């Protein structure tokens, strides 16, 4: 009894994207302004949280997201666990609705992705407001949310790239 010819390699769909998300976060934190505007600062791991849940359920996924969240907390100086929790909420929501969203078109998936990311941002917003005693700037939060929603093509590409790699999940 042989295994399917295409088998998901953990380092391909979890390890490498994780490193790329870290590198992109570091690179987009460059203190420069292009035409007097700062670089956008999306939450790159949000795209991974959504895509990993859609590609296939995994035990490693949540732990990788926790690591990414800790990386964001370390680099941005936010309380430890803030971004880990927010990323896991996106992952958890996508995982619970996985049966429903599998096989949907790209536009529908984009809307679902925007809703999931909104949940993650809402969690981060509330936790930050409670921790600091003052609510974060709403406009700034919306801008960062919009930049993160704009990352959907990356999540979609990942989903397309790896969704059918393990034939057991067709």
């Amino acid at each position: 009894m042989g295994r399917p010819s295409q088998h998901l390699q953990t380092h391909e769909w979890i390890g490498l994207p994780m490193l790329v998300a870290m590198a992109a976060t570091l690179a987009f934190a460059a203190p420069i302004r292009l035409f007097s505007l700062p670089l956008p600062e999306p939450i790159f791991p949000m795209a991974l949280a959504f895509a990993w849940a859609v590609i296939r359920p995994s035990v490693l996924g949540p732990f990788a997201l926790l690591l990414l969240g800790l990386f964001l907390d370390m680099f941005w100086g936010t309380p430890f666990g803030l971004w880990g929790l927010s990323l896991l909420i996106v992952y958890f929501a996508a995982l619970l609705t996985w049966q429903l969203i599998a096989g949907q078109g790209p536009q529908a998936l984009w809307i679902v992705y925007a809703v999931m990311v909104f949940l993650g941002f809402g969690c981060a917003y509330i936790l930050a407001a409670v921790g600091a005693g003052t609510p974060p700037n709403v406009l700034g939060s919306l801008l960062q949310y919009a930049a993160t929603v704009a990352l959907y093509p990356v999540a979609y590409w990942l989903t397309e790239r790896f969704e059918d790699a393990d034939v057991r999940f067709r």
Partner: protein
Amino acid sequence: MSFRDGPLRDIRAPRTWLAVAAAIVVLVIAIGLLIASRDEQAKGGTQAGKWGEARVKFDQVAQPVSGLLAAPFRWTSQGANFIGGYFFAASQNRQLRQRVIELERARDTAIALKNINGRYEQMLRLRTEPPIPMVTARAVADVRGPFANARLADAGALQGVKLGNPVMNDRGVVGRVVGVSRSVSRILLLSDIDSRTPVLVDRTNARAILTGDGGGIPRLEYVRGRDTVREGDLILTSGDGGLYPRGLPVGVAAKDARGGWRVRLYADRANIDFVRILVFDDFSQSVDPASLATGTAPVLSEDEKAAVAAANAASVQAQIDQQVKDQVQAQVQAYIQQQQQAQAQAQAQAQAQAAGQALIQAPGASPAPQTAAPPGATVSPPRPATAVPGRPAVLPGVPVARPRAPTARPRPRPAAAPGQPPTVTVVRPPVQFGDPDAAFLAGAGGN
């Protein structure tokens, strides 16, 4: 036969449940981390505990990596600036000329004010703050989101940077250092959601707290009094709490859509890649926190007691000397004024007597020529000299020498009560509102 119908079709459900269980476990871990880090931060600040140490080590590693990854963006930015500079050279030239004119005015004002201020300081014997040494650093990473506003700078403990040091750029205050490793320091910006900065309104001296919210224009909270803030008022650091030196330029007051006050930061007007870290020891750094927690005064050695007694005696002696000096000056001035008044009176009397004698010696002399009266008009005879006891005689047509008013002299300062320090009035130089350069020069010129 597809795999859906094969023997592996049942694998999906348990794997999904395993993934859900793993996600729940990790969620619990994340919540635990959040609570633990909050507690740790509340106890000892950002750099306290194991998590704080981990963050410092992470910064040490992230600095070169971030610099390397950000290099393409830097090059792109430099290229864009080069192209922009090429195409907009004429307009930039006009702006720069205007700016040079403004800066020259500000420089002249600053020189004059510095001179006056120096004289005031000498006259009042003010103990001015010593110049604050600075460390120039380059920002290698800039976190700008609504949940965190921080910056990593490539200067750390090796360059003398300490926790809590204020950070400025060429326009105004940027924030303060909240984490230091060997060669990297983490700067918490004024706009960060955790940032609270004591500030004052320069025009009214009203105190407030600048509260970051992750946006570019932080809020001005706890403003006391009515009409203490106006649009365009200059906001400076107040120095309260000892975190920042007093008088560093922060920004300009602006009203938001809800009617609350916010501050447009000067630091945002300039590029953010280079910063100056003021190596300024705040109060929390100059005392041992453990000694504050005990609630008892520190025990002094014999040498320290002798030094304190000598300093107290010297201070009391200096106050006595000052009082004696003030009294002697006041007496001398009063004596001089009396002499001047007496001299003026004597001169006036002498002149009046001289004029009277001249009239007596020439009785037929006609009075001073007058304009011809018209025919039929009555001409009044010349009035005799009138003399009021105690005053010089007044003759018509003769100018009267009035005693000179005593020269205006500064009144002697009231002597301070024994045991009380003399009152010191600090004269602040006027600062042109809305002019960051004047404010910068006025606020940090002495640094």
